């Protein structure tokens, strides 16, 4: 084959261009630390990397949601602990005064204490986080318990927060599930004096109480309540007036309120445990995906550096060869 200067020149130009392209690419790999610099480098690999990134980002968001839910439920849990203590105080006041033997001064003090307990329950029920009422359900913008009537103004709305793909968890507890209990069927019991007390479910969490004599024929007293605030308010009045029948009749509802609280504590505890477990799973999953993403997209620095060195040598050789070949001409040797 005849070789002309054009052929040599073109070959050298192409070799130089190719070597420079390789050199620039490897240099960018090295400086960015990335293996994939453009979709055309590895289209499928980049698609997988994007999928990992989306899933990792989703995991981070779920963890933020979990953290938010944990904060709310931990506050609820703290409230429940206090609530439990105050319920026990209320029950102690019943025990202290139900015999009717306390003098007027002691009763007045106990009644005052019961009133203070009612207000404490109100404070707990109307607790706020970030300007939102914790126990109002969806009605988080207004106080769940009305001053004066102590009626529940919230609803049973459950705020479900996403904690995984397609999975949500209730992040709140409503007042009607914590500070009230729902009587499923009428119940009766006999109190210390032989009188009979009948508890009948009313609308929502309302419980109608009827106290009858020992023969269960004559109605001695009736009253109603729908939450622990109203119960405590009634208790305060009963202590002040030394109404032992009402005090006796209120002992069972306070026990029911305590049972309700234990159930709610169990529910919140299990939700917090679930959130912990889910957070841990998400962290593990995120770490695994991050490792996969790194191996998919990050350049092996050692390998890139070695290839860069090889390309440098190639480039230098091409340049050397070009300078030698291009300088050769028969004209230089003709005299």
């Amino acid at each position, binding site marked *: 084959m005849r070789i002309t200067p054009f052929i040599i020149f073109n070959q050298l130009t192409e070799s130089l261009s190719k070597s420079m392209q390789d050199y620039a690419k490897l240099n960018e790999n090295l400086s960015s630390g990335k293996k994939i610099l453009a979709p055309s480098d590895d289209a499928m690999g980049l698609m997988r990397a994007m999928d990992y990134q989306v899933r990792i980002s989703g995991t981070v968001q779920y963890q933020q949601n979990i953290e938010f839910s944990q904060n709310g439920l931990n506050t609820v849990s703290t409230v429940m602990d206090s609530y439990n203590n105050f319920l026990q105080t209320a029950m102690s006041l019943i025990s202290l005064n139900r015999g009717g033997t306390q003098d007027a001064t002691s009763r007045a003090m106990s009644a005052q204490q019961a009133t203070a307990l009612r207000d404490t329950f109100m404070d707990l029920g109307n607790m706020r986080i970030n300007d939102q009422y914790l126990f109002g359900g*969806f009605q988080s913008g207004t106080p769940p318990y009305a001053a004066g009537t102590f009626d529940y103004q919230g609803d049973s709305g459950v705020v479900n927060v996403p904690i995984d793909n397609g999975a949500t968890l209730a992040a709140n507890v409503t007042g009607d599930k914590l500070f009230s209990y729902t009587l499923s069927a009428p119940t009766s019991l006999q109190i210390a004096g032989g009188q009979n007390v009948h508890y009948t479910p009313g609308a929502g969490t309302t419980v109608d109480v009827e106290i009858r004599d020992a023969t269960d024929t004559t109605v001695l007293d009736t009253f109603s309540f729908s939450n622990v605030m109203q119960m405590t308010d009634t208790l305060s009045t009963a202590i002040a007036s030394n109404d032992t029948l009402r005090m006796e009749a209120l002992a069972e509802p306070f026990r029911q309120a305590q049972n309700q609280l234990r159930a709610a504590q169990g529910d919140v505890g299990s939700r917090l445990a679930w959130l912990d477990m889910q957070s841990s799973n998400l962290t593990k999953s995120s770490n695994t995906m991050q490792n996969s993403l790194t191996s998919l997209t990050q350049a092996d620095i050692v390998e890139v550096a070695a290839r860069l060195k090889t390309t440098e040598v190639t480039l230098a050789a091409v340049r050397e060869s070009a300078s030698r070949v291009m300088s050769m001409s028969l004209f230089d040797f003709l005299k």
Partner: protein
Amino acid sequence: MTIQGLFDIGKSALFASQTALTVTSNNIANANTLGYNRQDVVLSIANPVSTGAGMIGRGVVTEGIRSSYDKFIEAQLLGQQQNQGSSAAMDQAWGQIEQVFNEAKGIGLSSSLTDYFNAWQDVASNPASQPPRTVLLQKAQALVTSAQTMERSMLYTLNDTNTGITDGARQVNQLATNIAELNQRITQQESGSGRATALDLRDQRGQKMNELAKLVDFSSFEDNNGAVTITVGMRNLVYGATTNPMSTKTNADGNQDLYLDGINITGNIRKGQLNGLIAARNDIQSSALAGLRKLVGSITQQVNALHRTGYGLDGSTGTDFFTPLQVSTTTNSAGATVAAAITDPDLLTLDEYRITVDAGNNVNIANKQTGALVIPPAPYVSGGTISLPGVDVTITGAVASTDVFSVSPLTGVISSFGVNVTDAQQIAATTSAAQLPGDNSNAVQISQLANAAQSAIGNNTFSGYYGGLVSTVGVMKQSAADSLSFDNNLLSALQAKRDSVSGVSLDEEAANLIRYQRSYEAAARTITIADELMQTILKL
């Protein structure tokens, strides 16, 4: 043979050497001239004269100058120039699009899409709070901006391709004019000679044809007068000394079509830069651009559908989160117009429609992408309503069988993409007014759209579909780069092959210079000796 015969032999040798030196010098001068084919002198023995001693030669005759030219290699080279021109244009166009979707460097839609739906989860976590709502509006605006930036970049590239097609047609016309002029000069110069003597003009024409081949594929043949006829897209571009100018015309889709001799030849261009530009333009429009528009259309449709059912903190309902989808129409008709209106945005399939009228005056409505008829052909009624999923179409006026109408909910979907909710209080996180402000169920549903398969985008999730788009762009760019690399290599090999036959070797020419110089000196010496012989005779 007389002594004068010696003079004649010496003279013929001098002339032959001088001609050879001239040709060699010309070769050296054109060593770097593109398209130049090296030339050499064809020498032959002058007719011998019969003497008593036998036949004695009468010197050398210059038969002509020959060009080193291999028709087969040149034809291959022309073909490869066409392939390379097409690949280079494709590679360049897809290279630009690849940078629009370069998620490897964080350029594109992925992060803003993820951030947007994550922001809905923040609203779901705290539905009555203002800060997450404000953040959601910011993330939504970021999504809008990303999509619009991407579309704008793609439209710039598409505009560049259309401009490239127009410029390409202009270059084709310039080259056609050059070739036609060269045809004329070659025909004049070679007239009556019966041989290809206009070597330099032929080289110039060959080079122009090579340049033309980079632009467009053509077929050519040379007539008996030495003129070439060039046909592009089965129409004559150059015929002897005349040309048919190639022109461009904007079609119904806003793209440039190529016309030659009054005929649309766009579909007949198979190679060359023009083919690369046309193919890249069509592929980008039908894959990357259409895909991104469909994605944005689907996000708008799905988010709006849920958002409309919810309630904002201010009690508002029925509000679209993003600017509602709209349909756009194009009319390519002399006597009729088309109009379209959305009847139910939730029923829109995000398909684009192409409407034609057949010879029997029936209206045919086909899916623009697949070509499949979406409803059976029906007789045309001016002003009649044609109901398609979620959209009513009305054509009014006199239609003809050449009319083409299009209806698309996607053409302006990104340019009109925007956040419709202006007040964070209007963000509908709640499904019922009675459950305000704490209900988050609508926000949860909207956030879960991110992981839901959407029928309008082939039962993919939004991010999955977008990942597919990025992958498609990457594969197209890789394919274009591979083709270009292959075509470059093949072109280099063919050019080397051509140069090995037709290229000028300076070493070879240097040797020829010495050779013909020595021949010249020897011929001069012959004349000197003849002169001395003559002197000797004269002195007798």
